[in-house]
């Protein structure tokens, strides 16, 4: 099932075409003073048409990405698409942009391919309030995410990193909704943008330093070679530049200040994509850029970084316990689980041999955490009314009104809590195995962190869905629409996938492990640098 390498470029071209389609289709210029019912109705109809087109596109694009990722899994030597470059900025640095696909970045594409259709189906715009700019920025974000995951060239990687920020800025800035808990949209979004840039600008300097030392763009695979020739001070600085960028994106503890407000004000679909896929940009960087290019520095700093991750897991859990609103609980559970993902990676790099359990576990958690977050945030949005998420103290007994929603939400909560049988358990156990090799105490603490998060989420479910409805609820959550049969079927399909991967994880682990282990050897066979 080998595809020609040109399909890698198609993954980038498709969302670009969608952007053009949504942006260029002529629409009447909405003047601010037009308030007649007829024009508002026409506007609504136009928005609904855009929404329907976007939905079809996301299913097609999602299917394409799933197919592409399966191709990546099945071909251990990988696909590479090398382009012809031009010297950048009249410097004498020739850049050859390259895209690649093998078992290492296939999980990220699989996640995107599954997450995008789910998000755009469960969270589609029923009232027609989002105009074409919503879909243009959503597609810009998808394009950039696919580009980050597929790039082999450092400059392309940086390009897509920045355009992802631009896409998210416009998506949240133009269509976000302010919240008394999180403040105004602009404040949250500019904080998000500035903190992300605070990470990515040092990364730019690191990339320039690597290119200057190598005389060309070394690509992700060439970083290790260039680093070998540099003095230790420079190596440390370059490593720090990349680490900051990925730590902010994931986020790791200490860099997470932007998380809550941004997720609160973002439009629901954006929130799901941010948590599920955009945070995996940080994971991609940690696993595939730091893990391959900076092994020596990671080995040197692994103990401290592992402690940071465990602290993040526990702190995220404690914050979860302290929250009242369901959405905040989900935000902090995301923080906790992502810290565990990073723990898997840093434990893997604790030894100088390639230790595949931790890396594979981290890659597995990429897929699992992403899908679980899509499900949880989507369900939370569906149970919310007027953008207000249900609170533990203020609501209760919602199960009576929304039976299907409560059922799927409970299953997702259990999956997130790493119930054995679900794939999240398999991924987390790999991470903990790897952490145990470095330090049993850290593993115990990490387990405690996971436990606290799980307990907090189950408690949230208990408080919101079970029990007796509170007398004077500020918002009547019973009026939220329950899941339709089709949407429930989608959720059941997702759970079937979790069960399949949870009961037979080798389906995923085997192809990934081949790529993780055999990358150097396999590439040498095919004659790639």
């Amino acid at each position, binding site marked *: 099932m080998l595809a020609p390498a040109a399909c890698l470029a198609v993954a980038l071209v498709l969302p670009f075409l969608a952007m053009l389609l949504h942006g260029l289709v002529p629409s009447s210029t909405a003047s601010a003073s037009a308030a007649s019912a007829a024009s508002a109705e026409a506007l609504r109809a136009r928005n609904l048409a855009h929404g329907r087109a976007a939905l079809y596109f996301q299913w097609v694009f999602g299917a394409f990405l799933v197919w592409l990722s399966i191709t990546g899994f099945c071909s251990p030597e990988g696909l590479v698409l090398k382009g012809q470059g031009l010297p950048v*900025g009249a410097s004498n640095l020739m850049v050859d942009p390259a895209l690649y696909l093998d078992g290492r970045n296939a999980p990220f594409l699989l996640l995107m391919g599954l997450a995008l259709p789910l998000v755009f189906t469960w969270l589609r715009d029923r009232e027609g309030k989002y105009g074409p700019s919503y879909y243009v920025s959503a597609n810009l974000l998808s394009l950039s995410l696919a580009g980050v995951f597929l790039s082999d060239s450092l*400059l392309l990687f940086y*390009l897509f990193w920045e355009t992802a920020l631009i896409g998210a800025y416009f998506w949240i*800035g*133009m269509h976000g909704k302010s919240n008394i808990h999180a403040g105004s949209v602009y404040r949250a979004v500019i904080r998000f943008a500035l903190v992300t840039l605070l990470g990515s600008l040092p990364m730019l300097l690191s990339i320039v330093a690597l290119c200057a030392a190598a005389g060309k763009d070394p690509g992700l695979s060439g970083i290790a070679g260039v680093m070998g020739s540099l003095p230790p001070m420079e190596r440390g600085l370059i490593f720090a530049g990349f680490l900051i960028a990925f730590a902010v994106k994931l986020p790791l503890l200490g860099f997470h200040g932007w998380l809550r407000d941004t997720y609160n004000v973002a439009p629901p679909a954006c929130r799901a994509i941010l948590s599920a896929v955009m945070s995996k940009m940080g994971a991609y960087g940690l696993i595939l850029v730091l893990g391959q290019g900076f092994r020596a520095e990671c080995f040197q700093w692994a103990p401290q970084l592992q402690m940071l991750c465990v602290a993040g897991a526990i702190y995220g859990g404690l914050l979860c316990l302290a929250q009242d609103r369901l959405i905040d609980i989900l935000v902090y559970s995301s923080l906790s689980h992502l810290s565990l993902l990073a723990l898997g990676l840093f434990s893997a790099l604790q030894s100088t041999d390639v230790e595949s359990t931790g890396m594979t576990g981290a890659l597995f958690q990429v897929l699992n955490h992403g899908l679980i977050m899509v499900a949880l945030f989507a369900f939370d949005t569906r149970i919310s009314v007027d953008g207000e998420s249900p609170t533990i103290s203020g609501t209760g007994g919602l199960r009576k009104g929304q039976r299907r929603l409560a059922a799927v939400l409970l299953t997702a909560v259990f999956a997130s809590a790493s119930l054995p049988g679900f794939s999240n358990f398999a991924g987390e156990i790999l991470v903990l195995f790897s952490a145990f090799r470095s330090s049993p105490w850290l593993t115990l603490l990490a387990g405690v962190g996971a436990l606290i998060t799980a307990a907090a989420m189950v408690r949230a479910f208990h408080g919101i869905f079970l029990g007796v409805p509170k007398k004077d609820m500020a918002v009547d959550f019973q009026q939220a629409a329950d899941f339709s049969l089709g949407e429930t079927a989608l959720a059941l399909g997702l759970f079937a996938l979790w069960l399949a991967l949870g009961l037979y994880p080798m389906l995923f682990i085997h192809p990934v492990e081949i790529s993780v282990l055999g990358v150097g050897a396999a590439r040498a066979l095919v004659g790639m640098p």
Partner: protein
Amino acid sequence: MNPYVISQAPLVLGFALLLIVASFRPHQKESLSGLISIVALGATAVCMWFWPPDVTDYFGGAIHVTPVGRVLAYICLALTAGAMLLSDEYLNKIHVTAVDWRMVVLAVGMGMVNLCLAGDLPTLFIAYELVSIPSYLLAGFSHRDPRSNEAGMKYLLLGAFSSVLFLLGLSFVYGATGETNLLAIHDKLAAAVSTGAAADLVLAKVGLALILGAVFFKVGVAPFHTWLPDVYQGSNLASLAVIASPVKVAVFGMLGMLLWGAFEPLADLWKPVLLCGAAISAVMGNLQGIRQTSMKRLVAFSAVVNAGFILLGIMAHSATVVIFYLGSYGIMSLGTWAAFMAMGTPKADVDELSDLTGLGRNHKWLALAMTIILLSFAGIPLTSGFAAKFGVLLEALRPDMDTPRHTVQVLLLSVVGGLISFYFYFQIVRAMWIEKPESRGSKASPLVPELRWNYVFVLAMSVVVIISLGMFLRLPGL
């Protein structure tokens, strides 16, 4: 007739023709003068193209032709022609006599070309003055507007001060070396450095320091930049399209050619100074830009920040990178002024951020063009601004480059300062796309911009150039 004189003739003839047009149609609205000016500028460029390649000196070394100088001259002429095109109806809107304005700009054009081709000290100074003095006129051209008068006055005083420093520096260099020809100065200085004759060098170094101070004033490197926001805010947009775009390119180009050419033996002196200037510009330009609500002042502080980057490029001794940066900056700047002109109404200009609310909804292509220019300023990839900054950083970090200590720290400062730049560039993006008109609370009707063909044309051209210069990917099939 030597080729140099032939190529300067169109500018002089154009000036003369404009005088004739002015005397026959003194205060009428006409476009003939614009046409004459653009033809003159184009003819100069064409004549320069056909210069004999082997002749580098004219008038005994007074004019010295180098490839770098020629490219810079072409860039300046192209940007000036663009500014001339932009000025077509705009000058009538602000009640300025178009012919007079265009004569002054042709004079500036002549000065810019000669600044790029100067071979000895007198030519250098004459060209410098020919660029500066008409610029003072341009800044204060809208004499009915008190802010324009203030801008002109400030620019005159500061510029005169800068010219005095420049002249003093040049005369000290003459005193130290006894030569006026720039190549001969280089040889004398190199000889003095190698033999270690400290006495001669002290005077030359003082001269160089004065020249650097003067040029820093002129281009607005911090901390000599305090005049920049007031002059930008007071001048009219057409004058700014000349002062803030081609003039910057010419003066920076001159600085580069002087430092790499005549003063190259004194590199140990000017490299740290440029590094300092870049560091201070990065800090002050960015910090002072945060609170601005006037768009012209915002652009002024962005000019300070960009000046810092250009200094880094000059310090890295890389001509191609500096030319690329200057060309990219020039077209971005011209595009900005074109966008501001396009956003203005037939009665008034835009200046406040709040004037732009709702532009993204009502005029999305105009807002998109402005956004692309702002992305280029902010250094987002696939734009020429990013490619230019990348080139500068790359050259400064080359392993075999002899850069002063703390270069890496200053580069980090400049790059992280880009964070703050992003914030204030995106204030404009926020105003156009994110701010909702209802939230403003005012009953002012939304902006109805006058999208004249010349504003839109220059704006579109600048966007096209920005994106094509920023591409490092060759599209398949091209």
